[in-house]
Each structure stands twice: as structure tokens, then as C-alpha cells.
């Protein structure tokens, strides 16, 4: 209960401190400031008072200190660029401007409740149809009016439908997951329940000592490691409190899986004998023992090559020079050390996540914008930005950009 007293005491701290920390809350409807700064080698997004979002995106062959890798394209930007915004990047859109998956983020099937995870683009992972469910969501701008949609529900990846299902929302399939109240008894059950032999792909990882990353690597072949993990089937699930790596070294894999509906989750093996992961929505920990853990870590290190850390989300800044029915063109010349090196990037606008910013009049030609995206930039196709998530608008100042609400 002592820790709860500390938690309670935290609840009593001065409101101005809380306000300063929370004003840039992603779901807040309050205004917030985002500062975007390219300092020396990096683009920096500043979120809220004193909050800095550092986005290092260097490429292995980028040698000059000002080289910044954006979606696979190396840019040579000058230092001191700034962008400020009051715009909330993670906002509650009006119903008509929501994507289908944003609208219907929950689903019921036979009395069981599911919550959306991620789009499923690989339809080969679909299994048999198991029924018709009701996807639903709420329009917060219309007194929480409930909207429903009858949807076909399918098995996904051979995983039991009381854990994950795939749902056809009309514009594509999406993985929905049930909230697991009871963790698996052991690692073997966890492995079998989620068909991890098929759906867990181990590649990019960091090697950490304590909490400090020593380097980033890519596993060249995960077959042997997967076999070693399967041999840990009897490793029991353990309780809260072991999710701490301060006294050990560890390898921390970044895991993405279509079937599991996850992006960049964590799968960690610590040399004191534990597997820690959040590939399902809860944080799970399994005690595999020191010998097995050290063996896995050793083999992983022997089967890997050094690489660069990859950003969770990439960011592109520039000035809108044209908006057509199909795309928005963004020029980053003013950010470049040599403005003649500027590139005009193409951001497709068919996706409502971008289109809605134009539809409500937020983005017009001449605006400075900040685009967040998860894909790459296709240099062979007019520098098309793939996987754009959202866009924030603004105006430049001091050689940088200021973004108002």
C-alpha cells in the first residue's frame, strides 16, 4: 500500500506542473504546441512546453552531420528549423471525416466484445467465416450517438476466435482482439494460443545493458532462435514487478505481425532468465531460466548484423505547392542547406486521413505542413509518401515553421 500512497501523493502535486505536462496530451481537446526543429543531424518535433520529440532517422551511409533520413531518403537540412503547432494530431474527428475503422472500433459477436487492433492487408491469413457480428462506435459530436454496422467475422491466422478475429468493414479487413483477463499459464500455452511459430517473426532488435541501448541489430535467420523459444514451453507466467531490466542485459526485438494486428511491439529476453512482451495488449512475463535465456541471447548475437535504429513513425516537413484531386505536393527546399537540393514530395490525398484536413479547409497551397507516415518514400514514383497518417499545418518563421491550430 506504500506505493499507492506515493501514487496518491502524485495526485496532489501542483496543478501548474500537471497542466504543463498534460497540455500536449494526444487526446486533449485543449490547444497544444508542437515545435518541429531540425537541429544539426536531426528533425526534432517539440510537443508542448519543454517536451522534445527527437526523431533521428540517419541512414547507415549518411556521413555528414546534417544528413537526415526521411522514409529512406537522405536529406541535408540546415540547423535551426522550427515548426510550432496548436493542432492536435490525435484528435476526435467528426463522424463524416472518420475512417471506417475509426468509426467502428468495437465489435460484438455472440455476446463477446472485441476491440480493433490493425488493418489486415494479407487476405491469405483469413480463415473461415464464423458469423456476423455488430461493429459499433459513437459520434461524440452528436451526443454519443451509437452507430452500428453488420459485419462478417472470420478466423484469422488459425488463432482461436476467442482471442482474435478478422472483420470485414467494407473497405478492408481488420484484426479485432478480445481483452484477455486471464494470462496463459505458461509460455507454451501463450505460444500455441497465438500460433507464434507462424506469426512471430524476429528480426530487428536492440541489445541493452540495463536500460541503455548498446546497439541495434538484425537477425539474419530466426529459425534456430524460434526452436529454442519453443523449448521454453514450460516456462511459467510470472507476476507483476519483473518488468524491470535495470540489473541485467537483454535483447529487445521489435515485432510487427499482420495476423496478430500489432505494429512495433516488444519481445524481450533478459539474461537473468525472463521473456517480457506486450504483443498482446497486456504485458506478459515468463520465467524461462537463466540458462535458456543466455543461450538464446548468445545465439541471437552470433546470428545478427549491426544496423540502424528505425523510427516508429517518420515525419516530413515542407511547404504545400499544389493540391490536386489525387495528391498534395510538398516542397522541402527551404529546409535544405542548399535550397537547390529541395525535393517536391507527393502525398496521396485519396486517403481520408489526409483528405479530411483539406476538406475542412485546414490545408491550402502555400501552407507549411508536417506529415507523419509509417511507410517509405518511393523515389522512383515522384517521391510518393506511403502510409501517411496525418498532417499538421503552419507558417514558417526564423527559417523554420510555425504551425497554428
Amino acid at each position, binding site marked *: 500500500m506504500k*506505493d*499507492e*500512497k*506515493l*501514487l*496518491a*501523493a*502524485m*495526485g*496532489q*502535486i*501542483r*496543478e*501548474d*506542473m*500537471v*497542466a*504543463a*505536462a*498534460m497540455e*500536449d*496530451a*494526444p*487526446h*486533449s*481537446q*485543449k490547444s497544444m504546441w508542437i515545435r518541429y526543429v531540425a537541429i544539426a543531424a536531426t528533425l*526534432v518535433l517539440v*510537443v508542448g*512546453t*519543454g*517536451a*522534445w*520529440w*527527437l*526523431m533521428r532517422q540517419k541512414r547507415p551511409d549518411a556521413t555528414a552531420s546534417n544528413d537526415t533520413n526521411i522514409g529512406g531518403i537522405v536529406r541535408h537540412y540546415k540547423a535551426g528549423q522550427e515548426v510550432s503547432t496548436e493542432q492536435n494530431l490525435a*484528435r*476526435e474527428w467528426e463522424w463524416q471525416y472518420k475512417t471506417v475503422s475509426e468509426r467502428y472500433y468495437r465489435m460484438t459477436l455472440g455476446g463477446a466484445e472485441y*476491440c480493433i487492433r490493425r488493418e489486415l492487408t494479407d487476405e491469405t491469413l483469413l480463415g473461415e467465416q464464423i458469423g456476423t457480428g455488430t461493429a459499433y462506435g459513437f459520434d*461524440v459530436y452528436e*451526443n*454519443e450517438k451509437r452507430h452500428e454496422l453488420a459485419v462478417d467475422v472470420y478466423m484469422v491466422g488459425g488463432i482461436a476466435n476467442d482471442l482474435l478475429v478478422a472483420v470485414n468493414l467494407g473497405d478492408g479487413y481488420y484484426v479485432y482482439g478480445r*481483452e484477455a*483477463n486471464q*494470462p496463459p499459464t505458461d509460455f507454451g500455452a501463450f505460444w500455441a494460443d497465438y500460433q507464434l511459430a507462424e506469426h512471430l517473426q524476429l528480426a530487428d532488435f*536492440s541489445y*541493452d545493458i*540495463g*536500460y541503455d*541501448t548498446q546497439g541495434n541489430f538484425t537477425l539474419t535467420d530466426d529459425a534456430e532462435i524460434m526452436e529454442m523459444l519453443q523449448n521454453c514451453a514450460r516456462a511459467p507466467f510470472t*507476476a*507483476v*514487478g519483473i*518488468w524491470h531490466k*535495470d540489473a541485467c542485459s537483454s535483447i*529487445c526485438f521489435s515485432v510487427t505481425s499482420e495476423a496478430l494486428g500489432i505494429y512495433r511491439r*516488444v519481445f524481450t529476453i533478459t539474461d537473468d532468465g525472463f521473456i517480457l512482451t506486450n504483443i498482446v*495488449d*497486456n504485458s506478459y512475463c515468463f520465467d524461462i531460466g537463466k540458462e535458456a535465456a543466455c543461450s538464446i541471447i548468445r545465439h541471437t548475437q552470433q546470428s545478427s548484423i549491426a544496423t540502424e535504429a528505425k523510427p516508429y*513513425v517518420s515525419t516530413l516537413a515542407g511547404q504545400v505547392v499544389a493540391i490536386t484531386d489525387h495528391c498534395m505536393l510538398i516542397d522541402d527546399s527551404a529546409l535544405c542547406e542548399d535550397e537547390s537540393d529541395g525535393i517536391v514530395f507527393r502525398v496521396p490525398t485519396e486517403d481520408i486521413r489526409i483528405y479530411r484536413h483539406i476538406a475542412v479547409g485546414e490545408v491550402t497551397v502555400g501552407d507549411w505542413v508536417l506529415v507523419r507516415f509509417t511507410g517509405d518514400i518511393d523515389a522512383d514514383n515522384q517521391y510518393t509518401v506511403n502510409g501517411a497518417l496525418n498532417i499538421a499545418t503552419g507558417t514558417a518563421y526564423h527559417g523554420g515553421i510555425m504551425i497554428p491550430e
Partner: protein
Amino acid sequence: MQDSEIIELFWQRDESAITVTVRQYGGYCHTIAYNILQSKEDAEECVNATWLAAWQSIPPQKPERLATYLGKLTRNISINRYHQANAQKRGMGQTALALSELDECIPDRSNVEQAYDEKQLVDAIERFLQEQPAQKRNIFIRRYWALYSIHEIAVHYGMSDSKVTSLLFRMRKALKALLVKEDIVL
């Protein structure tokens, strides 16, 4: 609508105050509640309870910062709900993780004699936070006031998860050192 205008609606007992508050701060409060409860349904109930609590407490209250006031109400209601519901659950939501992390800040009772005093503890935490650089302070508050996950904080600040974890670990150690130095026992 400005906070002062919303508060004025509350004082006039105008029910549109709730409508405006829901629209303006619904997402914000829901995030705090969900961070604590890890359940959308439970979070929705606690946020609804927050609106009721706000209606019942304004007036007489006239908060200077409506967002923080509502956030605090949501936090308290949600933590109470967490305690009620947690006995049967073994899942590790952010509340359990944050509690286990904060446990590291607690000095060993054998080393100190002074009785626990919440006011003294709050003062010490405030002084500790005041001495921190703004970013560190905000990260600590986001983790232990709003109970954002390590990963959410990492994404928000463009850091790796391990860097945020490391930063919080060092801050907890520093806070513990301060509490020991000041003989504050829980």
C-alpha cells in the same frame, strides 16, 4: 469555448456546461481513465462519473485550470475503480506497473523513524520535480500522474522505450534518495 465561460455555465447551473465539457475534454479524461483501467467500458463509466462529480462540485469550486481539475477527478475516480476491480484481475495495466515502479522510491522503514505525512510527501515530490528539467518533469508526471505507458511516452517524445524507462528509473532513484534524506517514511 474558454474555460472561464464553461465554468460560468456550471455556476449558472446550465446543463449545456456538461455538453460543452464532454465535447472539449471527453477525449482527455477518457485517456486518463483508460490508462488507469485498461478497459474502455470502465473508462467510459468513470468519465461519466467525472461529469457528475464536476456538476456537483462546481460550484462551490471555481477551478483555475478546468482540464487539470477534470483530469484530477477522473484520476481519483478511476484509481478507486481500479482498486475495486483489481482483486480478480491478473492483467498488468499501467496502474499495476506504475505502482510496482513507484515501490522502488519507498525508503526502507528501518532506516527512518519519522511518520508518514502526506503533506510533507507531496511537498517533497513537488520540490523534487521542480528541480528537474522541464522534459524530465513532464515525463515523470505523464507516467505517474496520468499513467501513460512507457511506450506512449516514448512515442510522444520520440525516444526509445528503453531511454524513457532508464530516465524514469534514475528519477525514481533520485526521488528515493531525497525521501531518505528527509526521513520521509510511508
